[in-house]
């Protein structure tokens, strides 16, 4: 009887795990566009489909952002197919969940290239993963277009040249950090600043360093620079040290949960000054700090869903999902549009080398939801693209865009 009880318990555990496995986003399983939040893709036709893939985090710490990117990418594919496809051929997109893990991403990328025969890939948003994928893409010669913002993902640190098969379709960490640094100096009149960042995260450090360099070049004094590791949740020791130096502003460029904890703890410790941040202060930051008024907080915001270029996308997302879109919806859409532009120009869209060459040289004022995007062939990053500076309203329900800064 006891053995049966144990067996029953084990079977129950297996059933629970199987129930979870049946949901979308499972690692290494192509999901296609089965996400109920995404628009349906046009039917695949026999032969002739052009295959692209995505490597996105749909179940890790950046799952909300990853799922939004998937939605945007699917929407772009549907839009392209509804308009006749790529020179008459349907575009097919295959999704892989990479769980925020570089090894998982490399495995999925290799599967996309070797088994699924993808000619181009929409890459994940995490910079650590972009850096890991860059040399692999060089080897496999299938281009990746993404929004991982660390410049080391697009520039080979040893040769200082651009990695040949990887592209960034939004301003880099350097560009974004310099934009908000410029805003800090010019509009917020910051004279002293402290920095609190995640030392174990490339994304965070590649905001902190250029921010510091920029403000110091403008005569602002950096009175403290403290760090935490990614598994830490209590930053009060660092914040107490920072607050004791009485900075006009604290710059905190990290992930949403870390930013929320830092913001709450800074306010709890009595700091009422400016807090300045990166582009992860949009939702769910406002729900994570519930109970703490949001004020004196300025951050980077990449996409204005009320602008003429982007409204259609934001409205479509809201209509389908009932919630306001994250900027990542636009990232997914834009990445696919850049790839599609190259596919349309290619003599042989199944030749990833040719497609890559066209992404590099012919991405000029390509119409996307973020406006026209031009990729600089020498850096593989956009040129002339800016970011918004934003803040939350007092209710913590709405984001106001204050200014637009180009690097």
């Amino acid at each position: 009887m006891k053995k049966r009880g144990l067996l029953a318990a084990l079977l129950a555990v297996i059933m629970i795990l199987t129930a979870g496995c049946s949901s979308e986003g499972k690692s290494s399983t192509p999901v296609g566009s089965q996400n109920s939040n995404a628009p349906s893709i046009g039917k695949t036709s026999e032969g002739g489909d052009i295959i692209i893939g995505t490597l996105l985090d749909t179940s890790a710490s950046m799952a909300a952002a990853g799922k939004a990117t998937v939605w945007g990418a699917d929407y772009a594919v549907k839009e392209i197919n509804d308009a006749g496809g790529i020179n008459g051929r349907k575009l097919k997109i295959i999704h892989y969940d990479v769980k925020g893990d570089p090894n998982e991403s490399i495995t999925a990328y290799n599967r996309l290239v070797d088994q699924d025969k993808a000619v181009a890939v929409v890459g994940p948003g995490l910079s650590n993963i972009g850096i890991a994928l860059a040399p692999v893409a060089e080897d496999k010669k299938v281009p990746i277009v993404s929004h991982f913002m660390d410049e080391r993902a697009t520039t080979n640190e040893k040769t200082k040249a651009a990695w040949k098969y990887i592209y960034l379709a939004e301003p880099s960490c350097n560009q974004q950090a310099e934009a908000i640094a410029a805003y800090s100096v010019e509009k917020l009149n910051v004279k002293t600043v402290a920095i609190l960042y995640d030392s174990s995260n490339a994304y965070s450090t590649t905001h902190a360093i250029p921010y510091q360099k920029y403000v110091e070049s403008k005569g602002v004094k950096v009175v403290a620079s403290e760090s935490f590791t990614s598994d830490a949740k209590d930053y009060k020791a660092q914040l107490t040290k920072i607050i004791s130096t009485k900075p006009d502003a604290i710059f905190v460029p990290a992930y949403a949960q870390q930013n929320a904890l830092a913001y709450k703890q800074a306010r709890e410790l009595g700091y009422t000054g400016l807090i300045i941040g990166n582009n992860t202060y949009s939702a769910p930051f406002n729900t994570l700090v519930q109970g703490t008024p949001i004020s004196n907080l300025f951050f980077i915001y990449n996409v204005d869903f009320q602008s003429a270029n982007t409204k259609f996308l934001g409205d479509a997302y809201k209509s389908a999902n009932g919630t306001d879109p994250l900027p990542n919806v636009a990232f997914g859409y834009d990445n696919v549009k850049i790839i599609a532009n190259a596919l349309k120009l290619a003599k042989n869209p199944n030749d990833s080398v040719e497609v890559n060459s066209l992404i590099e040289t012919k991405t000029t004022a390509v119409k996307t939801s973020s406006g026209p995007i031009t990729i600089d062939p020498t850096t593989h990053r956009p040129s002339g693209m800016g970011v918004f500076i934003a803040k939350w309203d007092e209710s913590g329900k709405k984001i106001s865009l204050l200014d637009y800064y180009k690097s």
Partner: protein
Amino acid sequence: MNVTFLIQQLINGLSRGAVYALIAVGFALIFSVLKFSNFGHGGLISVSAFAGYFFAGVLKFNPVVSVILSAVVGALLGVLLDFIAFKNLRKHKSPSIYYFVSSITAGILFMNVLTIFFGTTFYSIPPFFSQPTINLGNIIIAKLDATIFIVCSVLLAAVMLVINKTSLGLALRAVSMDADTAKLMGMNSNAVVTFTFLIAGMLAGVSGIFLGANFTVDPFIGNMVAKGFIASVVGGLGSLPGSIAGALMLGVIEVILTTACGDIITPALIFVFMLIFLLIRPQGISGKFIQEKA
């Protein structure tokens, strides 16, 4: 660095230590009775944190009710954990190391089941206090941290009372000394052990909701059990009051090292400190030498 700064950092350290103490009490209880390090406790904390979010954030129960219900959930999960991971090992009189391995596996299982159903999205428990801090001049004390410290102390006192002053506690101590002899004396040692897991689960339930309220809820919040382990080791494995003292010491030392040396090197220095401390006092602050530890 002025006096206010130093006092504030001391309070920060004690606050951090209070969080660790909440974890360490449940961890130490299992060790004191069953003589192994139960890393499944982390899984219980994670599930209980989600339960706390459900009660406080979704059903909008008040904090006291939410804490009580999370404790109940944790208690039931503790019994489930015993059933899944340890009961069969007891039946076959397995070596202590098997319990240790099974506990780690169970902890990972709980957290990953949470990930399957909830992803790794973060959830926020509504604040317990409308005014979150007590201001004593320039010194700030977070009410939630103070509450955690008080709750931890009360729970410790309650558990010590049960263990030392009740017949059930007597049975617990008897089973911890020798389960077979306790059986011969007419005690149902299995039931006593299950009751121990029920208590430890209740402590995990309380830990989970308070940790979730302090740091937001995610499936891997239970990984903080590692801090509970360090606190228990420093405090003396098997000593409940020692685990609290160890936790507070750990919190203060972490803050001191972070302030002086930065957060990057602090984790390594903590382990160096632990090694040196155990070289000097291997039984911990108030523990006794225990054989067959796992």
